[in-house]
């Protein structure tokens, strides 16, 4: 091959740009988890009594549960007593001007400038560093429109009633093992509230960063769109390169009332581990949206390139009549990464529609599974679903799997499933090369074409980022 051994190494070492560690003084809770840890955490965050109780209830439920093992992934047992459940930079800023310059530098390096001068045009950013939100931009401008965009900790203190009304209403405390754990120990995340009739004037975005070692990140995000409200939200995630596996167990809840429209996009680039499968983030996430009102719509778009193991199924509960749920996904695995991801579409209301587009790309020795459930309840007259799952394999040692489940209880429903698996064909590769395009560029071009349908769903700036990310993640995939 044209590539020299040295070039491959160089490509691999630059393949994860976000792998640096920020040197910053951190306050952490000691390792381990018991009721005392939860009380301490809740006290640190100056939470009201009801919140502490809510956490404890989740914790007690969690103790009765077992870690599930049905996913198509292999992982070492997780020692939940060897994790610190809270890590936060010591200095507490009161405003953006007081944010530690080291932190600002970190986000600059990640391409997410927080200060007013350089901030991304048309995007408000909430920056979550380890267990806490360190800054939220453009809050003033959003407040004028009536939009609340702040960290979850702040929301619990300042918008307690709203949080209390909606928290756990889509993903209950005892929903599953990791959701229960998250409910007990979640530290921060974003809170979004779009009041009736308001179209959010800018893209909202949260940038999650794990920095400290031996910590888990348990964020909780809650987005509420009232009647006729419209919002587009994007999350990005990165972490330093470490030899240990770190746990990230988030819960995201979306609530769309009548005619509301929520678009939730993820570009997930947690540290995937090295080329031998050492280290990397365990990304075990529960994401669910409920189309609670008639004619509402929720769209999930995800580009998953990071994490040692990804285990997530952003789902839609289509309760309102004529509500629509969509899921667009690109999941790329390389080296020893494992992904078990897909969606659940639960049709409850009449004339509900769902659409699933999943694109899996496997390279190296990775395993990539699509797992999806389409469930049509008895009352869901005229429910429609269309599912399309395409996978592409690069090389001979990776695996791609599809696990579609369907439960249809209404005879008027139409549920369609299409699936394809292909290899990047030698013909396509040679065609590109015969036109002068190098092998690695040809592969990323072919893969990019394969993912086009999903990238189209991402907000413009992030589509470009997603494409770049895919290219970097594919480096070293050929050889």
């Amino acid at each position, binding site marked *: 091959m044209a590539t020299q051994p040295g070039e491959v190494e160089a490509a691999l070492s630059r393949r994860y740009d976000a792998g640096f560690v920020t040197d910053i003084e951190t306050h952490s809770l000691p390792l381990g988890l018991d009721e005392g840890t939860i009380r301490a955490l809740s006290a640190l965050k100056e939470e009201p009594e009801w919140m502490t109780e809510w956490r404890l209830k989740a914790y007690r439920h969690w103790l009765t549960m077992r870690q599930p093992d049905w996913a198509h992934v292999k992982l070492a047992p997780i020692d939940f007593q060897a994790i610190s459940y809270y890590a936060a930079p010591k200095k507490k800023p009161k405003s953006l001007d007081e944010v530690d310059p080291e932190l600002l530098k970190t986000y600059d390096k990640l391409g997410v400038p927080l200060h007013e001068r350089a901030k991304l045009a048309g995007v408000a950013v909430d920056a979550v560093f380890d267990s806490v939100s360190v800054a939220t931009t453009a809050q003033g401008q959003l407040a004028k429109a009536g939009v609340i965009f702040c960290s979850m900790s702040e929301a619990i203190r300042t918008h307690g009633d709203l949080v209390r009304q909606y928290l756990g209403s889509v993903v209950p405390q005892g929903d599953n093992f990791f959701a229960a754990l998250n409910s007990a120990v979640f530290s921060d995340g974003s809170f979004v509230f779009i009041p009736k009739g308001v179209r959010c004037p800018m893209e909202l975005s949260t940038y999650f960063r794990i920095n400290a070692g031996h910590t888990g990140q348990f964020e909780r995000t809650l987005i509420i769109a009232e009647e006729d409200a419209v919002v587009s939200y994007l999350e990005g995630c990165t972490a330093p390169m470490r030899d240990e596996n770190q746990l990230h167990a988030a819960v995201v809840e979306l609530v769309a009332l009548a005619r509301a429209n929520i678009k939730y996009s993820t570009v997930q680039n947690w540290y995937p581990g090295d080329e031998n499968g050492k280290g990397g983030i365990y990304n075990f996430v529960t994401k669910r949206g409920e189309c609670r009102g008639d004619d509402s719509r929720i769209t999930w778009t995800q580009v998953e390139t990071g994490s040692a193991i990804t285990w997530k199924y952003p789902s839609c509960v289509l309760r309102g009549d004529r509500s629509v749920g969509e899921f667009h996904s690109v999941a790329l695995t390389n080296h020893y990464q494992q992904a078990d991801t897909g969606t659940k579409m639960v049709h409850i209301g009449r004339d509900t529609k769902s659409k699933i587009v999943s694109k899996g790309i496997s390279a190296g020795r990775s395993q990539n599974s699509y797992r999806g459930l389409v469930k049509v309840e008895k009352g869901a007259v005229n429910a429609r679903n269309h599912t399309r799952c395409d996978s592409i394999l690069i090389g001979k040692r990776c695996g791609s799997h599809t696990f579609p489940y369907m439960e249809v209880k209404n005879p008027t429903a139409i549920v369609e499933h299409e699936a394809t698996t292909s290899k990047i064909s030698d*013909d396509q590769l*040679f065609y*590109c*090369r015969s*036109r*002068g*395009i*190098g092998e690695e*560029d040809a592969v990323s071009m*072919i893969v990019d074409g394969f993912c086009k349908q999903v990238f189209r769903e991402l907000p413009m700036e992030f589509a470009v980022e997603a494409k770049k990310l895919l290219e970097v993640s594919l480096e070293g995939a050929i050889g």
Partner: protein
Amino acid sequence: MLKIDNLHARVAGKEILKGLSLETRAGEVHAIMGPNGAGKSTLGNVLAGRPGYEVTAGTVTFDGKDLLEMEPEARAAAGVFLAFQYPVEIPGVNNTYFLRAALNAQRKARGDTELDSMQFLKLVRGKVKEMGMTPELLNRAVNEGFSGGEKKRNEVFQMALLEPRLAILDETDSGLDIDALKQVAEGVNGLRSPERSFLVITHYQRLLDYIVPDFVHVLADGKIVESGDAQLARDLEAHGYAWVRERTPTEAHA
């Protein structure tokens, strides 16, 4: 420009080319004719560097450089272009994007500056007009959903844009109706120049009524058994390939 000497090549363990020699100079158009299985397409693929085509003996030089040592993309940058017999579809990859990536990769390899989007768009739109293509072509994915004729015309269009020094046309006439054939031939004729050499691989003489070659070579059983001018192609059409075999038993060249 291109010098092939005693070329032997195998595909899937089977020897297809058995001592082929051929030389082309700038400005010349050479037609390679021959019956099915003679090794015509193998020749095109070996020259373009397709993986799986193993050269077991002989040499090929292009402008004095060893072509066989070069990766396919390096051959393209050096000016070798293969118009595919079966152009490949690349779903989701926009034609304009593809062509720009190809042209810029070649320019970069040659040490030329790359074209920015505006410069490239100007160039490609000009070529579309020149070649009588529909501008819509630029917004479509590479060969996706193209008819057979569209695919072949797209190959010639790519050639016009990439301006190779050696263009190899692998059965570009196969599967074309007479109108499409004329269009393809017109495109090729428009690209003939004193600096450019063509290797036109075809099964039928029909194409050579429109692209009149300077030399015609008959390929049989892996080597060239007879060479001549355009008249040879017409004789072949009249008498069939058996006629060549009778006149020049392959043993005579062994």
